[in-house]
């Protein structure tokens, strides 16, 4: 799993932006979404990413894992992820 070929990621003070350069659409990311994209770039599937973030954010009720799954699904739906 990786960002699609025409998607660029840049971190900003508020989080980050994803820029899909074929449609020239820009998506702004909050800090949680930014952390997920950073982990996507580091490699691994949804479960590995969720596990890493769960440890980092001391997630006890599984909220982070659900957010990871939902967010990755949204990225796929918008064609921003491949693989």
């Amino acid at each position, binding site marked *: 799993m990786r960002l699609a070929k025409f998607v660029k990621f840049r971190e900003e003070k508020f989080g980050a932006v994803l820029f899909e350069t*074929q449609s020239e659409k820009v998506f702004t*990311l909050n800090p949680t979404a930014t952390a997920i994209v950073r982990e996507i770039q580091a490699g691994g599937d949804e479960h590995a990413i969720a596990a890493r973030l769960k440890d980092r954010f001391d997630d006890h009720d599984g909220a982070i894992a659900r957010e990871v799954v939902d*967010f990755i699904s949204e990225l796929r739906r918008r064609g921003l992820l491949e693989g």
Partner: protein
Amino acid sequence: MTRLATHTTAEAQDLAAPLYVAWQITNECNLACLHCIEESGPGKAFADELDTAQVFAVLDQLLDCEVPYLSFSGGEPMLHPQFFEMVEYVCARGAQLKIETNGHYLSVENCARLKALSVKAVQVSLDGATGLTFNRMRVRGEFDRTTDGLRNLRIAGVPIEINFSPARFNMHEIGAVVDLAYELGAYSFYTGRTMYTGNAVKAWRHLELSDEQYEGFFDVLRAKTEEYRGRMRVYFHEAGLLEELRYRLQHPAALLIVLPNGLVKLINALPFVCGDFRRQSLDEIWASFRRAWRDPRVADFVEELASDPGKTKTLHQWVFL
């Protein structure tokens, strides 16, 4: 909750650097198009265009600041003596690059080179479905050479975009041009209203379309959008310049327009210059760009366009903010 916020263009105020830099790398051109907003043409290179060291110093700044997307246009960008070195430099540093060309230098070898360098896309201007209309708009241009260039791009596997500028004498071909763009392998087709500025001021009687003609033009495009849905994207901007600029005043895009001499324009359709890469860093220019959109002279100029649309002919009389 983690959610994506979507914008058709990013707004500049909250970003650390531009997201898109449109660089007119030379004003020299092999053609002298009737509608050219840059007044480019043979022998029209600016006397003070950036030299090689300056060009690469600007590129270094843009790439160090992670500008994700650049375009090279002109003039004819492929006439720039360092064109391929610049393309290679940008692509090797991971930014995405679009080339906007008239298509006359898209030889088999050049297309293979662009493919090997992984340019994001090559946008070719195709202002007619026949030599008759194309060659009339693109003075000194050759329709067959452009379509041969497009075929070379397709064979090389370079993503193709097509741009069309409407005029009184070519608008009837719009449907055929969209069909031709698809046949030549384009994934996107762009058009809008031709602007009354640059060379177009002198040729306006040949170019100007009435509101009714534009209505028919956009009707065809709406039908073509549906016809090619899922196969080729057909983009067209129905909004007039005034409407677009009023929107931009409220929502400036994170886009810098860089001229061949390093000056930075606020937006192509306004005369304001807000930076100079020969004297300022990207950080300084970016700060100046964001301030400039709030300068009352900019809003005043836009509102004056409402009563005097012909003011666009002064866009080349640069106003330094």
